[in-house]
């Protein structure tokens, strides 16, 4: 099938939203489809956001390809007679982050009008789609609640790969994702402060643009609690070999994002290396994947309780290992594989 795969992204910010497009393209191509990638620059900045959305809307793909699949917002505004959306997150400031401290649109009359315009435009674009898929039950609920759109959850898998190397269960928890405040690396430090064991923490990930103040905040926090010897903060781009090394030697993976849209690649990655996932009950998508006592631990986002869960993973290595090893069967149970995804998306 001749497929146009469209997305909109900020340049040079690699992350889940970029990878899902690349992986889907290769999954489609390896199944004999012709994929034409359309990548439009997009800046999540409130002042010009609506203008940019209009721009995307005005691009016309309608004469090309048998099917248009859109991924990142606002690519669902593109027009095509046969459009399907795999919607991975809203421009959250206008949605669930509205009224929280993560809101970037000003809380003013103009800001409210902008918010309404964004919601209406999204709804109109999504309504045109033949089918809307999303990447988690969290996003599914938001689509229903804010846009009145019904959608089907289609969990994004990792690229087709397996890790065959040796896995050990070392003395550190790994927190591997972009360095951004809402990813809450700070909560892991707060949790570690309450531990009674000598568990260590490795925080690694590429920084978001303008994240220098946040990284300094993390450094200050580590200093304030005197955790310099137990926390390692890696803020440079981690290559595949180093990443593989970090995952294969950690005790378990910690991931506490605030109300995340999906279970997050760090969680899947953890399971690839047969590691358990420690997450928090308000992390959104992660709790769809992680079941306490099965393939990880879900705790309330309370530093004291997080600390206790951390201690337990440290004290009981056998338990950490068996939770980690159960990850593969948990992923199979949720249908997290490319055959299933491709089948649903194009048939």
């Amino acid at each position, binding site marked *: 099938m001749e497929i146009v795969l469209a997305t909109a992204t900020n*340049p040079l910010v690699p992350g889940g939203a970029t990878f899902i497009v690349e992986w889907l393209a290769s999954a489609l191509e390896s199944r004999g489809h012709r994929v034409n990638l359309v990548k439009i*620059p997009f800046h999540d*900045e409130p002042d*010009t956001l609506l203008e940019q959305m209009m721009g*995307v809307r005005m*691009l016309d793909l309608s004469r090309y390809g048998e099917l248009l699949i859109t991924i990142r917002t606002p690519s669902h505004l593109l027009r095509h007679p046969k459009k399907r959306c795999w919607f991975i997150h809203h421009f959250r400031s206008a949605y669930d982050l509205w009224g929280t401290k993560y809101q970037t649109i000003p809380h003013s009359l103009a800001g409210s009008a902008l918010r309404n315009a964004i919601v209406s435009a999204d709804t109109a674009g999504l309504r045109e789609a033949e089918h809307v898929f999303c990447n988690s039950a969290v996003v599914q609920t938001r689509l229903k609640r804010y846009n009145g759109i019904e959608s089907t959850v289609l969990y994004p898998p990792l690229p087709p790969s397996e890790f065959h190397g040796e896995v050990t269960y070392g003395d550190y928890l790994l927190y591997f994702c972009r360095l951004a405040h809402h990813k809450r690396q700070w909560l892991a430090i707060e949790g570690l402060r309450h531990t009674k064991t000598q568990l260590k923490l490795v925080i690694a990930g590429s920084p978001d643009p303008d994240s220098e103040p946040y990284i300094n905040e993390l450094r200050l926090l580590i200093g304030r609690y005197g955790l310099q010897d137990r926390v390692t903060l890696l803020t440079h781009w981690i290559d595949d070999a180093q990443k593989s090394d970090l995952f294969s030697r950690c005790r378990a993976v910690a991931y506490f994002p605030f109300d995340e849209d999906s279970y997050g690649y760090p969680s899947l990655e953890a399971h690839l290396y047969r590691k358990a996932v420690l997450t928090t009950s308000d992390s959104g998508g992660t709790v769809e994947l992680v079941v306490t006592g099965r393939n990880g631990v879900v705790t309330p986002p309370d530093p004291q309780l997080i600390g206790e869960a951390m201690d337990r993973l440290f004290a009981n290595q056998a338990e950490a290992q068996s939770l980690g090893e159960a990850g593969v069967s948990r992923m199979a149970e949720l249908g997290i594989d490319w055959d299933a995804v491709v089948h649903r998306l194009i048939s």
Partner: protein
Amino acid sequence: MKIAVLSGSIPIGRSRMDEVASALLRELAVRGHDAESFRIPFDPTPDLGMIHTILAARRLRVANVDRIICLDFPAYCIPHPNKIIWLLQNLRQAYDSADTPYPAIPDTKVGRSIRESVLRADGDALAEASLVVTGTLDLRSSISKFHGRSAEVLRVPPIVRSAISIERGSFVLCSGPVRRINRQHLLVEAINQCQTPVRLIISGFEESRAESGPLREAIRRNGVPGRIEWISEPYDELERTTLMSSALAGAWVSHADPQGETFALESFRFSKPMITCSDSGGIAELVVNGASGWVTAPASIELAKVMDEAYMDRERTANMGLQAHAHAQSLEQNWDEVIERLIR
């Protein structure tokens, strides 16, 4: 340095511009720059959609980079405080006047407003840019004539590895998009008038039925079985390289094509002389008649004569190829020079 490379193209198929964008990205990366490419879709159908495309591009924003490098329409319409335009292709349809033999934009009210909008948008984009360089002499003359903007010429370095090729098949290769103005049909008609069994391979993506009409019609009327082949698949680097190295000669007979020089240089790099027409634009100046190729009147009978010549005196054709190759080398710019100029 953080850089975004922006190009425009019809949403399906891989174009030559996509190849240039990937090559540029690769060359920037090996020199330690952080670069990512974006592809702005556009539909060349001459209706109001084309004006929407311009308006769309003007509304997009590229953040988080120190500069953007734009290669063609409509990518160069995207605003940025540090915009570099390496103009490899404009929307030539809008620059061809309505009295050219093959106007792709009709001389109607809508057609005229499309022309006007594209010219104005190009003028604005060029005025905003911090640097403008062009891929061919023709594009340089065009922006000087229409927009009063001067620019250096910075040719695209070889993207595929090419070499002097001693292999010589019995076919003339015409590689480039199938459009009315590119007149591939003249070559088809010529084959029918050739005295020798020379063959023709057209490797060109069919962008629309309207644009491929004359070629389809010519093949239907003149199709000599086994002597004409049209590969309408999207651009494929490996296939093109293979075809180029085994061709007898290249041919590009477009009417006043500002990009024609690029096609000639590509052919030269594979040591193939080029057949072109006296009204084809800068390419007709680049090709030295009787030395690195043939420059004929834009008529099928004339083209038939030179195709026969190329076929009959293969040794001479081979020698012309060697001259062409030397000529290409003398004009060649390498990636070091190009990148240095683009990021200075």
